[in-house]
């Protein structure tokens, strides 16, 4: 038996729950086939989420899942350019012709899909992204040059959640693109971070479950981490990472959304209509974080 998991045509944080629902009870007993043939577009969140699914199945000792590549040549080329297929080859039995990675010029990809396994990876990521982040933030998004450091800081802190809390490795990707429906077609830069680890609930359970009582669950854990800046560590200096990201985003009308287990919690700026809190979602392993920073002006 094979379980078919269809990748939505437009695969991003909004359609992610649809993707997660196909897995059923986790981990699925059957071999999984992830069918991306009909996918027309995927955000960085979608791409790192796909890899997380493959990683989580491997860590659950399930048979290597199958992945059928998008039918669209443009989509395949783009996924190749982000580095997705290079990592997917380790996690999936890939079916379909994948374009070879060639020389790339300037693109919307600020940071290829990159694994995060240890602190050293974050050094590499921050070092690699600074120049391009400065160009995009000031040139395209109209954000003060001094805010580039804050962006690198937010990226570093988002990635550190994996190293510090997930108990396994994860993935990050950064990209700029244009919102079609929201924000009147403005440019945005998006950081997507995903891991297949223990998730916020299990990470915080030993220190927070009793305090929340009956309210404890994925939703309560996200609330503790994102709203109350709680950490599982007793060190009073902990828990500042997400607080720092929120502070940075509040200055630039940015958005942060975290999905873990069966809940998603977001700090939603005025330009977005997302629900701040959604519970009882289809389960998905680990945690998925998305940070979105919009252009400070409408495009002419």
């Amino acid at each position: 038996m094979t379980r078919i998991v269809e990748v939505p045509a437009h695969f991003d944080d909004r359609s992610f729950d649809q993707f997660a629902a196909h897995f059923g009870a986790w981990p699925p007993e059957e071999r999984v086939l992830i069918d991306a043939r009909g996918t027309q577009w995927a955000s960085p969140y979608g791409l790192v989420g796909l890899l997380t699914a493959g990683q989580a199945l491997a860590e659950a000792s399930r048979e290597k899942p199958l992945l059928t590549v998008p039918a669209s040549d443009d989509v395949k080329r783009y996924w190749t350019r982000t580095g997705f297929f290079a990592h997917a080859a380790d996690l999936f039995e890939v079916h379909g012709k994948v374009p070879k990675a060639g020389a790339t010029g300037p693109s919307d990809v600020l940071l290829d899909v990159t694994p995060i396994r240890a602190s050293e990876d974050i050094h590499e990521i921050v070092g690699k992204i600074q120049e391009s982040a400065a160009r995009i933030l000031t040139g395209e998004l109209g954000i003060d040059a001094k805010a580039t450091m804050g962006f690198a800081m937010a990226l570093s802190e988002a990635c550190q959640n994996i190293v510090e809390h997930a108990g396994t490795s994860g993935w990050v990707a950064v990209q700029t693109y244009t919102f079609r429906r929201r924000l009147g077609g403005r440019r945005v830069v998006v950081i997507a971070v995903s891991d297949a680890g223990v998730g916020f609930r299990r990470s915080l359970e030993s220190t927070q479950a009793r305090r929340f009582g009956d309210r404890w669950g994925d939703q309560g854990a996200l609330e503790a981490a994102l709203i109350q800046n709680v950490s599982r560590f007793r060190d009073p200096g902990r828990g500042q990472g997400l607080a720092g990201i929120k502070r940075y985003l509040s200055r630039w009308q940015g958005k942060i959304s975290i999905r873990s287990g069966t809940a998603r919690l977001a700090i939603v700026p005025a330009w977005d209509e997302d629900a701040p809190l959604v519970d009882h979602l289809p389960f998905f392993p680990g945690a998925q974080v998305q940070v979105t920073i919009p252009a400070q002006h409408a495009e002419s």
Partner: protein
Amino acid sequence: MVQTISLHRVLQEAVATPYRNLVTRATGAAVRGRIEATLAVGNGHTTLLDFSGVDCLDLSCADEIVAKLLLAAATGDRVLVLAGVREDQREALEHVLAHHRLAVAACFCGIAQPDLLGWIGSDARLAFAELSARGPADPPSLAARLDWSLERTVLALDDLGRHRVARPVAGVFHPATVP
């Protein structure tokens, strides 16, 4: 005596690579460990943490290095001063210092006069700026220079003293900066 510690150099020793970014808690802890070892054998009363050559500073590193060294210094007789700080590093430093209700004197790149970072009252900031700009003073002299009451001046100086960013020598308050 002032003991100067180059964070860029300690970073390169701690991670054994040519990184210029102070990021991640593990890196911060490694850098702080080396600094503490240096301080343990040094005899300087003032420690100057020099940020020159450091690019990105994230919250985790700011917390592990600056906040924790300040917390440790508060139990001894050591004064910590930051130098070579870039304006875009201010945010991370302000955030972690405010979190711990700490303050520190910092010299920013290209700016002659030092500034205070962290959790400190506005009067204390003004008093510190005056002491830094026009030199040490006893409470009555400073009150006259700022056109404040003596009571207000003493409260501001107490705040500075509590945070170890100014200290009295024979009744005259000196800002914690580098000569």
